[in-house]
């Protein structure tokens, strides 16, 4: 394949990765921003979303779209409820102590992972996409006959993949609107800014924490439901999203929506493009190097605010 069409393909694939990564990382970033909790179990909520999606989709039956829509509604909700439970039973009793929460969430990671292995099993299972059409993509070129459009061999994408990108953008916009325009967002931002003062102004901080932790897990689960018709649900699938989310959040700046989204696009795209044209290992090296550089030269991340 020529370089141009191949690049387009790599960009499209990178965009799907970036879209899902942005949602997942946003959940991690939100939890850290508001609660100052490093949620090591974040990837497992992602996995939980995918596994629940499989359970929902297979138990409903009928047209795949019905199961998918149900999963889209139920999986984030259930994962969120599990997260609220984790907050009430584990994080709150240790008083959100930074070290204790890390150890606690590591425990949650293993509990969720092994529970999935025991109930769902070790296989990778697919969820049928609600719709899926192969779309051949055209390519333009200045040839001998001037400007020409043609369909290069193999240059195609899938309608569902485009939907994932679109859905992620819509969800991100909605999230941004909630955070900046709604009262709930205001309360969350107030808690993030100054917990004590928020408490003094009558904001039920403990409830906000529970909701935020649930929301963060819900975002990860939502991302997983979107990706599970492309990839399969597997009990170990939480590992990579966790790692990448940390990379994204560190580069973008913990707690910053803008930074998180931008870093997700950067990492997702570069992963798609570098791994195709150079080597997959190199793309991981570059991502890790970026993290190191950011930590050295801009520890608060690209868009993070310097601690006062």
């Amino acid at each position, binding site marked *: 394949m020529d370089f141009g069409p191949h690049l387009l393909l790599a960009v499209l694939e990178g965009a799907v990765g970036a879209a899902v990564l942005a949602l997942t990382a946003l959940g991690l970033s939100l939890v850290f921003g508001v609660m100052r909790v490093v949620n090591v179990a974040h990837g497992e909520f992602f996995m939980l979303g995918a596994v629940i999606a499989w359970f929902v989709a297979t138990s409903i039956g009928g047209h795949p779209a019905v199961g998918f829509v149900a999963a889209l509604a139920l999986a984030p909700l259930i994962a969120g409820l599990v997260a609220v439970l984790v907050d009430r039973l584990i994080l709150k009793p240790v008083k959100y102590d930074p070290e204790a929460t890390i150890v606690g969430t590591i425990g949650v990671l293993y509990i969720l992972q092994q529970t999935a292995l025991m109930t769902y099993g070790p296989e990778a299972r697919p969820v049928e996409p609600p719709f899926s059409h192969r779309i051949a993509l055209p390519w333009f070129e200045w040839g001998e006959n001037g400007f020409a459009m043609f369909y290069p061999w193999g240059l195609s994408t899938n309608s569902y993949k485009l939907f994932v990108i679109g859905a992620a953008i819509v969800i991100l916009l909605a999230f941004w609107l909630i955070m900046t325009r709604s009262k709930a967002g205001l309360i969350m931002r107030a808690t993030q800014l100054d917990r004590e003062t928020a408490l003094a102004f009558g904001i039920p901080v403990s409830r906000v924490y529970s909701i935020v932790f649930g929301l963060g897990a819900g975002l990860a689960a939502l991302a997983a439901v979107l990706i599970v018709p492309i990839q399969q649900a597997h009990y170990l699938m939480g590992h990579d999203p966790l790692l990448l989310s940390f990379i994204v959040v560190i580069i973008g700046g913990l707690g910053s929506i803008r930074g998180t989204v931008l870093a997700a696009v950067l990492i997702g795209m570069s992963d798609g493009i570098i*791994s195709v044209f150079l080597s997959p290992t190199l793309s991981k090296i570059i991502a890790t190097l970026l993290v190191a550089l950011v930590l050295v030269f801009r520890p608060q991340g690209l868009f993070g605010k310097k601690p006062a």
Partner: protein
Amino acid sequence: MTPKLMTNRRSVLKGAAAGGLLAAAPLAARFASAQSSAPIKIGFQQHSTGIGAAYGRWYGRTTEAAVKMINDAGGINGRPVEIVAEDDGTDPKRGAEVLEKFANQSGCDVAFGTLFSHVVIGSAPAAGELKLPYFVVSEGHHVASGMLNRYTLQPGITDVKSQVQAMAPYVSENLGKKVTMIYPDFAFGHDHRDYFSAAIKEQGGEVLEMIAIPPTETSFTKYFPKIPRDTEVIYHVMVGPAVLTFVKELGEFFGPSRPEIFGFIDSLEAVDLASPGLEFLEGTYFWEGNPRYAQEDQTSHDKMFREAVGVDANGASVSDPKDVSTYAHMFGCWETLHVIKAGMEAAGYQGPEDRAKLIEAVEAMTDMPQSDAHPQGPKRFNGKTHQVFGVQYISKVEEGKLVKVHTTSIEDTLYPDEVDYTSMSF
């Protein structure tokens, strides 16, 4: 949905039952002919968790069934067999620890059962140091290549080098001579790359392009443009949880016109061929270690094996048709346990002091005819390289089922010895 638990719970119950069995006088009479009627303990290094868990579960079920059959027939040397299963987490470091536990704590006579090559390679040195016979069921070439030691044997499953080499004649004669290979970028994939490209060259074919994909990759479309357009056959051996994605995206990439496709069933072990997205595989070919679907010419041995393990004619669990087995590999546990039994009987095995005798007895084995002990097919063991050789199957996907189209000879799978373990001291 309690597949994983079942095996564990059952084996725990079995362990408890075995204890009770020995105490019960009338039943103990069955094993009375032995000098000692204490059980022979076989340490089972099981991939219960980690990336190999789907295999581990079926290796567990097969092992249980084989042990039940051996015990029902009077055990080994008149002694009952007891399996000590231990999870290795599909992790090499843990694997070595598990072997140590078998030798020093559980008092196992031998160890057995490992599949994933990195765990075998990580554990084998420990087996050598502990002087614990280590029967692996891994299909890796590392045993026959000479990189391990005299205590490590693979008598129940063929190795990847012989499998791959036996495929080349069929591929070049029936599918095409210009091949593009897609494989995971680690030892298992490299074995395929090296042995297949050499074997296809010998058949007058060529490998146009080799596409290595990192084992953690989850999306594949971006790699497919590297497939040259004049490719006649795509040879794929992807493994791991992302393999369904791989097949689906390959289908989307080619759309209606695709080259011939030949794959190793390793890609789809424990995966239902009726899964959404796999329709694309219709008309493609697979290597199978043992045909997953009961074939028209099914032998009585295969029938017996399926019934004993609890697998239906479609290769799925009799209790849950969605629970698909790792049929192309798990027979290896069954056959290995029968080789251990035959070896222990030939050596007059009494206890750990006879471990060297046991290895010598297995090394002396040669032809193993197809039988209830060897349901996959006839085998030929090479005592020098500690590796068994046997027939391989090629199946075609027809109406969503794998139909056997070719059976190789054992000769197709042979290659010159690369090591002589018998010259090493114990």
